[in-house]
């Protein structure tokens, strides 16, 4: 089932790229063999074909030998969603809020949400790490920060 879902997703992506390739100009100043769509079309057809094989092949269904209980799996999914949401929020707010402030808050929040202990220590570590990163990139290596 897992394979079928991934094969379907990638077939969709392949078709998307193939349509894009077919819409590209067929003739260029270098003739028809210089057309920009030739190679993308070839690669997308290969993706579609290989995914099609994966979709139709008969794969032995191996029993789920994962020792994780449903409760652990639920907890892991919850943590995964939380982490993804926090990462997205952090990247979304980059450039809108001062880097030091945003990063300190992000690191403290992440540590508190996932570790759930030693709040004062994690907040202090977060601030120190943020200042360290800021100093290293912007002062030592003279690189721009968001």
């Amino acid at each position: 089932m897992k394979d079928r879902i991934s094969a379907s997703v990638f077939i969709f992506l392949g078709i998307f790229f193939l349509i894009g390739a077919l819409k590209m100009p067929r003739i260029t100043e270098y003739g028809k063999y210089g057309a920009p769509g030739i190679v993308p079309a070839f690669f997308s057809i290969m993706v579609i074909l290989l995914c099609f094989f994966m979709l139709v092949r008969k794969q032995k269904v191996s029993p789920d030998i994962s020792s994780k209980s449903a409760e652990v799996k639920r907890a892991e999914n919850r943590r995964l969603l939380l982490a993804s949401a926090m990462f997205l929020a952090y990247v979304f707010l980059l450039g809108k809020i001062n880097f030091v402030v945003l990063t300190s808050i992000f690191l403290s929040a992440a540590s508190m949400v996932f570790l759930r202990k030693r709040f004062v220590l994690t907040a202090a570590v977060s601030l120190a790490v943020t200042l360290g990163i800021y100093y290293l990139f912007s002062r030592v290596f003279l690189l721009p920060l968001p």
Partner: protein
Amino acid sequence: MYTTKVFFESMISTLSNPLLLFHLSWSTLLGILVGILPGLTATLGVAILTTLTFGFPPEVAIPMLLCVYVGAIYGGSRTAIVLNIPGTPANAATTVDGFPLARSGMAGFALNVATIMSGIGSIIGAIFIVSLAPALGALALKFGSWEFAILAIFGTIIAGSLTAPKDPLKGWIAGFLGLMIAMIGLDEIVSFPRYTFGNIQLYGGISLLPVLVGVYGVPEILTSLKRVTKAEVVLDFSKSERKLSYLETIKKNALNLVRSGIIGVFIGVIPGVGEDVAAWVAYDAAKRMSKEPEMFGKGSIEGLTAAETANNACVGGAIIPVLTLAVPGSAPAAVLLAAMWIHGIKAGPLLPIQHPEMIGYVAGSFVIATILMVVFGLLVTRLFLKILLVPTEILMPIIFVLCVVGTYVLNGRLFDVWVMLLFGLLGYFMRINDFPAAPFVLGFILGPMADTNIRRALMLKNGDISPFFTRPISLVLIVAIVLIVLSKYLPKKRGEKR
């Protein structure tokens, strides 16, 4: 001859330059630290340092990146031995015998043996850079568009086969996905904007570094953070250890060392395969040749030697095609290739002509990196292991911030950060569905090479594809592709079915 001369000159000049030695020292320590931390790969280490070395001249930046690369591959052995968790994928084979050795009270001995064998492996790699790279460079000059086009597809397919041995189809899909996504941006022949949808940011294509950091870093961070059960960290070296001579161990394993080193180098040369495969293949070969195969998995020094020698020798092997063909042998080598471009060094067949000193210089820097790795390995890594006491929940968000900042400083645009995040989610999706990341990344790197050369080959002969099959090197590569594919899907003999 010239390469050997530069090789020794570069070592002497590095050793006599205190500032350079200082930069190389902290880079090596950083590499070891990256290797020690489970979840951080050598690829990520080299990528993060690439962003920090923008302001450095190439003769400083490239050796620094080599130090991180060598240090990280070695550093992963520390946690593999002490915790049974490979610090990087390259050290997975090390856990098999390293951890049983540590459990039997020989942690210190196992750590030091791994250090020494890694050092010897790296030296074997350096010898091959000096001897093999100029020859491969000369061969690469005979490559035309046909050979480069087939080489790109060959590299992707072989990387797919070797990184997904149980299901190579997924490896090949990952590779062709990488090739396909590399088509985004202005094409190199007629400058037509492909898949840009009018977005000016996409005209230049997608940068390699955000893709690499995304595909390798983000899934690792997410996987570490979601894990509810954590490995227990026990750093106890107080148990009495059997006194064994290191020299005796080297002597007993001399053949194993040379064999594993050569395996490591040659697997390194194969595009996109990398150190993890090298370690497993060498481990398997050592077990087959051993007089005590029953000891493998129970704390065999031979097994530990094979794995650690091969993965470090592989680093040298992976650098050879970077220098001569601009085709990376492994994922960290891919970042190294990108870093060389950033610093104005165009690796590839013309490198031995345009920068004849580069091969010897890289090999010399590689040896210096190895020396530093062994010195720090023997002196301070036990201290470094203390970092494992820092909870993952604190460490991983910091690593995420470093990924974000490292990606941003590349071009100073938030667009790259979003690209990194998008490819991170794609990488995570691929990981949970057992698609390997290495062929995807290799395909992404080789995509432009394949595109330009396929079309150029067609234009040169007005659409005639016969040169692909009549030119010797191209034909050999095509036959190799067919054999690889057939070997995976031909029906097996009756005896092998079980």
